[in-house]
């Protein structure tokens, strides 16, 4: 039997197919469609790639901000649990999990056996999320996937003091005007985001092996900033962006018989 996980993010839709022991396939796509249609499209594409039919898949769980709208998912599960499950599956010793997406940053603390014990996430303000980096990339005129490589080569850091993701623009512009190199500015952007992430990490406490997942985990510059500032190394699993969808698929597998829930989600 196969299990599906869908993660509807603020930016991209991710899908994973899982058989209870291994990942059969995963896919992520940036789409403009409505949650349900987007989920369908990505999931069907993935099945086609894998040469499976819809009926081969048992339960599908959805997570993310549009999870309630995915019609073919039997249940939704929270991003925190899914990120924790996915990361733990990818890195079996994981104790601290950071999930950094486009608009959300979540930090989960896991117990020795992998159960989630605590979590913290950003509230109301987008500074300290992937969008901050994207906005920065726009001003620096580089594609977002180049931000990491660019900042890694910096010989120092141009500090971005503004807390607002939008207003950081003017600080970045004045740095450019002051002749700061793009490398140093990129490093500054990563540091500013990392500072926010570390605040959240601090709320749950940094224990054991740390793992980072979500789209921004693909950004080596950010990971470097996090490592430098915490003195701890962060593991980046393969395909970090789909780790949350993987978690949803694992949830679908774990709850294949209904699970221990007192009450099904009704939304």
């Amino acid at each position, binding site marked *: 039997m196969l299990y599906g996980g869908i993660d509807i993010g603020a930016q991209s839709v991710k899908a994973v197919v899982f058989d209870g022991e291994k990942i059969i396939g995963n896919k992520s796509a940036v789409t403009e469609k409505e949650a349900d249609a987007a989920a369908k499209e990505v999931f069907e594409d993935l099945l086609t790639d894998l040469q499976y039919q819809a009926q081969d898949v048992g339960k599908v769980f959805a997570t993310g901000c549009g999870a309630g709208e995915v019609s073919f998912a039997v249940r939704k599960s929270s991003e925190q649990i899914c990120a924790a499950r996915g990361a733990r599956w990818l890195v079996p010793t994981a104790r601290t999990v950071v999930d950094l997406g486009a608009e959300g940053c979540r930090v989960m603390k896991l117990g020795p056996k992998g159960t989630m014990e605590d979590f913290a996430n950003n509230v109301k303000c987008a500074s300290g999320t992937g969008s901050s980096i994207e906005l920065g990339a726009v001003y620096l005129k580089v594609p977002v996937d180049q931000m990491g490589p660019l900042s890694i080569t910096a010989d120092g850091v141009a500090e971005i003091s503004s807390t607002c993701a939008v207003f950081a623009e003017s600080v970045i*512009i004045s740095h450019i005007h002051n002749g700061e190199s793009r490398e140093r500015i990129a490093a500054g952007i990563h540091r500013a985001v990392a500072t926010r992430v570390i605040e959240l990490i601090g709320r749950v406490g940094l224990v054991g092996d740390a793992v980072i997942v979500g789209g921004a985990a693909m950004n080596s510059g950010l990971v470097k900033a996090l490592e430098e500032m915490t003195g701890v190394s962060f593991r980046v699993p393969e395909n970090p962006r789909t780790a949350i969808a993987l978690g949803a698929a694992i949830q679908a597998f774990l709850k294949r018989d209904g699970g221990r829930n007192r009450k099904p989600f009704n939304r």
Partner: protein
Amino acid sequence: MKDTMHVAGIDIGSATSKAVILNNHKVMSTTIIETGPESQGSAESVMDETLRKSDLRLEDMKYIIATGYGRINVPFAAEVITEIACHAKGVHFLFPRARTILDMGGQDCKAIRIDDGGNHVAFSMNDKCAAGTGRFLEIMAGLLKVPIDEIGPLSLQATEETKISNICTVFAKSEVSRYLRRGVSKANIFGGLHAATADRVYGLLKRIGIDADFVISGGIAKNIGVVKRVEAKVDMHAYISEEPQYIGALGAALLAIERTSRT
């Protein structure tokens, strides 16, 4: 007094740079350009352009005052003065009976109270968040692919103002995308965005107390959607000059005249 006395006011805002040259209270020429990444460069180009239009040289300027958030980066200015004083002065010149000013630009929004001499006697400013500023609307206009000068009129066609629950510009952006995908009309979305902006600025106005006459200046004054909604909230007509974006630069130039006539 000599028959010609040229002065200039220059306003380097976060979005646009403006310059005004006056000859004894008569406007000789004005220019507005986008503020580039370099405040100093923008200051030089906007000044050059304005000088060129009235066929003058920098040396002809008796006094230059700079204002705006990039005011310290204007090497040729004799003095820097805050936007607040300049807007107060500029508005007073155009609307002598004005007592309350709402100045909304790209990044900041200020409510200013002035006395009968055009001096500011109280003011309040937005906090360190982009929610509800000109930049906020610009980002949304970009997202919905509507030219900035059309968003105001469009918002007035709203049949129902979509409630925007996120104050964060970034979050509001994706909230708006979701509405869009659900088929909510752009007019309704802009209705909601403008209402949210008006709510926030109304808070600033209330802090200083609102008295007639009421004037809106800065780039946002060109946005009828915000203007109408603020008018409804304060329950007063808002006076708006033809070129509201120049008011800061105009005020700076007027202050330059005061400086030269004093000596």
